[in-house]
């Protein structure tokens, strides 16, 4: 059967046009799916579970001291709080600004807030926007203050803890903080000075606290 376009009625032409459009529709990407964010839920669940996306404040302090610059440090707190105090090299951003973040999807991003909760939300947000390397500062700025700026130690702590504390004290001074010794035992600080700093993570009280805070955040 030969179809003569000129002999068709207007209705038949419209029907043909509709058929062509309908057929073309098969070859376009789904407009609804393009808008919907797909999340690799098992990857996220795994990261939440093994805490591999968590960076401890000690680690961050170490990076900053070594002047590592391969990461973006983002402060999610209010502008007022940010201006009052912020971790060196950080930039202030709100969660909505974070949505329009122009940054490489593969670049390392470390986010922090007062504690873990807000940062965890932002972490999820960035993860769902396919940012590959998003990290969470474990315990947030509170942990930073507790452990890096004003680390404390009780005078009857074990030698291991004291060794770690010596390292923390140095870090603290680097960032302009002041380490504290909780009970007034003079021998404690002397012992700390003599001990060699260890790099292994300490089984100390502050670290335990940090671990708990991580769980809260996730």
């Amino acid at each position, binding site marked *: 059967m030969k179809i003569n376009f000129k002999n068709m009625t207007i209705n038949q032409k419209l029907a043909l046009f509709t058929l062509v459009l309908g057929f073309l*529709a098969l070859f*376009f990407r789904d407009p609804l799916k393009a808008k919907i964010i797909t999340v690799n839920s098992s990857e996220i669940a795994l990261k939440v579970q093994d805490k591999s996306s968590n960076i401890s404040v000690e680690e961050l302090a170490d990076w900053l001291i070594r002047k590592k610059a391969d990461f973006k440090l983002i402060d999610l707190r209010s502008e007022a709080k940010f201006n009052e105090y912020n971790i060196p090299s950080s930039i202030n951003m709100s969660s909505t600004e974070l949505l329009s973040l122009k940054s490489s999807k593969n670049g390392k991003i470390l986010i922090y807030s007062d504690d873990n909760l807000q940062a965890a939300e932002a972490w999820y947000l960035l993860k769902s926007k396919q940012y590959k390397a998003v990290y969470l500062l474990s315990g947030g700025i509170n942990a930073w203050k507790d452990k890096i700026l004003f680390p404390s130690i009780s005078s009857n702590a074990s030698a291991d803890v004291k060794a770690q504390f010596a390292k923390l004290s140095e870090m603290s001074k680097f960032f302009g903080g002041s380490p504290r010794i909780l009970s007034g035992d003079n021998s404690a600080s002397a012992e700390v000075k003599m001990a060699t700093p260890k790099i292994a993570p300490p089984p100390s009280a502050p670290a335990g606290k940090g671990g708990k805070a991580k769980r809260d955040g996730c």
Partner: protein
Amino acid sequence: MMPYFKFDYFGSDTGLFFAFIIGIGFGWFLERAGFGTAKKLAAQFYFKDLTVFKVMFTAIVTAMLGIYFLSVFGFMDISELSVTTTYIVPQIVGGLMLGVGFVIGGYCPGTSVVACSTGKIDAVFFLIGVFLGIFIFAELYPLIENFSNSTNMGKVTMPAFFNIPYGIIVFLVVLMALGGFAGAEWAEKKFGYKKVEVINED
């Protein structure tokens, strides 16, 4: 980016203004298609005149293709369109009731307003019936509340429900519509009265 209202291009007052303009256009086209007369509307149930079916399906296909391609080319955010919630069983029951009313009264709610505006007396009575029905429904609502909220499927769309791409649904609906048009033409030839008579009757 469409839909303009959802993206705050204008407020609800301006929105009502546009609704007014579009509503007048909608009514005008319904009237011009012959939807202002109960005889024509009821004739479709006897396969005598399937204009209503053809006009409605044309509207569906036009809107669907328009929305689809506007979204594909980034002029519209399809996820911002309002989707009414599906309550499958109550909606089947309600649909059957509306259908029975349609056959008996000769109008659906929208076309009864169109017919009213052209001064059809039967449409005035039909419209009184519509408001009476709304009133009775509201009064009975406490008794049927559980039923009317049952089988809630949420804001479900066909691509999401059948988990197949949007484009395939678009294509299938186009095929269905074109098949429907061909079928309607065939039925009109077989069951319909002569077109000349219809025009004279009006």
